[in-house]
């Protein structure tokens, strides 16, 4: 045990003196996280839908029933959106005061003041409470613009039907003067909250596979491992110290990335909660064990870095792209997502996310934890089978 600790300290020293290693394990994932975190590159909505609501000023419950005309208007808008964009829509009536704070998963949310339908002084002055508000997810900007056109077309039609006397020119003028409040803050925050734990999970994979795999292959190729094996202590203590060092690096890396996400990107992470850090530590260690095992397994038969690199990339790239790091697995075709949801990185990213976003305890994400533990067992059996000292 004393030897193991001494060797671990030496290994940590070696690791942190290796500037390239530090770059790839700490700076690179941080850099990627910041680049993506400031954008809203992909939508993270699991079930995209568009909601179209009429907003009612009165708080009288009896008013919360759609008239026939309103029903027709909303139904037409919904059908047009569904037909053109292929996105599910919901419609109804909502309270004007409350609707600005209304939270739902809609990628585009349209609030049409009910007065539009009844306002007799349409052409004179448009009151503030008579504005259409469109709240949208930035990654659906095209769809939101199309929705806007559909809404305008339907509104114009209904205005002309109700007030034929104002004429189509005035109706167009009126429609054009409707302000659209475009709000993308929510989606940006959503994406930050999505990408930070995702990148933390990805970095665990990278450190596990590349750092362990390449170091061991180099030690084998140069004969260093053989020389260590020729000592009375043998190489097992040294290998254990190597693994312990990587586990420590993985923890440090995860903590730093989450803190960076919180303070630099402003992601919504509850870093002041002690239990949160315990959960993160457990998840990182289980995830780290899986990917360190994968690193050991692929270094097992590799004779040089040249033969290791393609194998490592073959494993890392599909997982990086298809495990829901940068966009949700649900946005993949079903046949693919049915398969990629079982990737170890999918389990790890989901666990990280449920801890940072939903503040869930590790045990409440039972299936994901079990999934990762099953991978751990499978990979370690493979690693033991494949690992060669020389």
């Amino acid at each position, binding site marked *: 045990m004393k030897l193991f600790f001494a060797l671990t300290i030496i290994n940590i020293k070696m690791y942190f003196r290796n500037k390239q290693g530090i770059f790839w394990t700490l700076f690179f994932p941080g850099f990627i996280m910041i680049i993506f975190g400031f954008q809203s590159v992909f939508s993270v909505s699991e079930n995209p839908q568009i909601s179209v609501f009429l907003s009612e000023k009165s708080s009288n419950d009896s008013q919360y029933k759609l008239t026939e005309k309103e029903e027709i208007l909303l139904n037409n808008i919904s059908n047009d959106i569904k037909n053109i964009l292929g996105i599910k829509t919901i419609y109804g009536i909502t309270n004007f005061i409350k609707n600005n704070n209304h939270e739902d998963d809609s990628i585009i949310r349209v609030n049409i003041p009910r007065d539009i339908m009844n306002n007799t002084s349409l052409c004179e002055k448009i009151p503030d409470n008579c504005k259409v508000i469109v709240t949208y997810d930035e990654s659906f900007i095209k769809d939101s613009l199309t929705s806007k056109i559909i809404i305008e077309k339907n509104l114009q039609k209904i205005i002309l039907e109700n007030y034929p006397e104002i004429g189509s020119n005035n109706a167009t003028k009126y429609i054009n003067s409707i302000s659209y409040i475009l709000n993308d803050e929510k989606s940006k925050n959503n994406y930050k909250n999505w990408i930070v734990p995702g990148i933390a999970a990805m970095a665990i994979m990278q450190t596990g596979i590349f750092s362990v795999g390449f170091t061991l292959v180099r030690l084998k190729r140069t004969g260093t491992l053989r020389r260590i094996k*020729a000592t009375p202590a*043998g190489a097992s203590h040294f290998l254990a110290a190597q693994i312990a060092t990587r586990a420590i690096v993985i923890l440090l890396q995860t903590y730093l990335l989450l803190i960076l996400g919180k303070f630099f990107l402003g992601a919504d992470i509850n870093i002041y909660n002690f239990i949160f850090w315990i959960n993160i530590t457990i998840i990182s260690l289980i995830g780290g064990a899986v990917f360190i095992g994968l690193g050991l397994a692929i270094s097992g038969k590799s004779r040089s870095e040249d033969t290791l690199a393609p194998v490592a990339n073959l494993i890392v790239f599909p997982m990086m792209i298809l495990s829901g790091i940068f966009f949700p697995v649900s946005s993949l075709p079903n046949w693919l997502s049915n398969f990629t949801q079982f990737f170890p990185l999918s389990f790890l990213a989901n666990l990280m996310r449920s801890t940072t976003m939903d503040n869930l305890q590790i045990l409440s994400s039972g299936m994901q934890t079990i999934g990762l533990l099953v991978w751990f067992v499978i990979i370690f059996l493979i690693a033991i089978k494949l690992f060669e000292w020389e």
Partner: protein
Amino acid sequence: MKQSIIIVNNLSKKYNEVYAVNDISFKVNKGEIFGLLGPNGAGKTTTVEILEGLISPDSGEAIIDGIDAIKNTKKIRSIIGIQLQQNAFFENLNLYEIIDVYSKLYSSNNDPNIILEKVDLVSKKDASYDELSGGQKQRLAIGIALVNDPVVIFLDEPTTGLDPQARRNLWELINNLKGQGKTILLTTHYMEEAEELCDRVAIIENGKIIALNSPQKLISELISSGFKAQKKINEATLDDVFLNLTGKKLI
């Protein structure tokens, strides 16, 4: 009667039906430098690595300082010093730290500074392995072989690839170790090295020992058999010219 510290009896090792070591037996006396001589692929390294406990033989026995080297490899590793043919040590550590790691792996309390002094690398204490010249790398490897105060030191082609200055310097170091009472088993394919260093040599070819005696006796046996050198030996060689021109100091 000289005391044997290494006893090898009928040792054999086959790779893919080809004998790398074929039924060899020899004894190494305490305090001598014993050379295993032979061309590349003769079986020198396999023999040495069996004694070091890195390879298990197919048959035969090997005893070092009274310990069975085949069955008790862990114990053997703690009493021998090893310099392998291929040497590499940790990146991102200086020489002091590298020696310290090996002291720990050998559970030895030797001060790395003393080891560095023994192999004349004190000035390179803070350098990394990559910054060393070929000769310095070999001296470090020998230094590491000394961390556990071994009774026997195995040197596998210690001077291969070195320039004449570095080689002579290493010879000096090896002779010093002998002077300190260490037993050394070294392999080489340089005849002049064997002649310079070894008390006795075993010549190996195709996994078999074909001659075993002191270099002088092997030479006299050859002469007494009527052999005459075809060419008069020069009083100085090109090696000597190079040394004379560049000086004897280490690089």
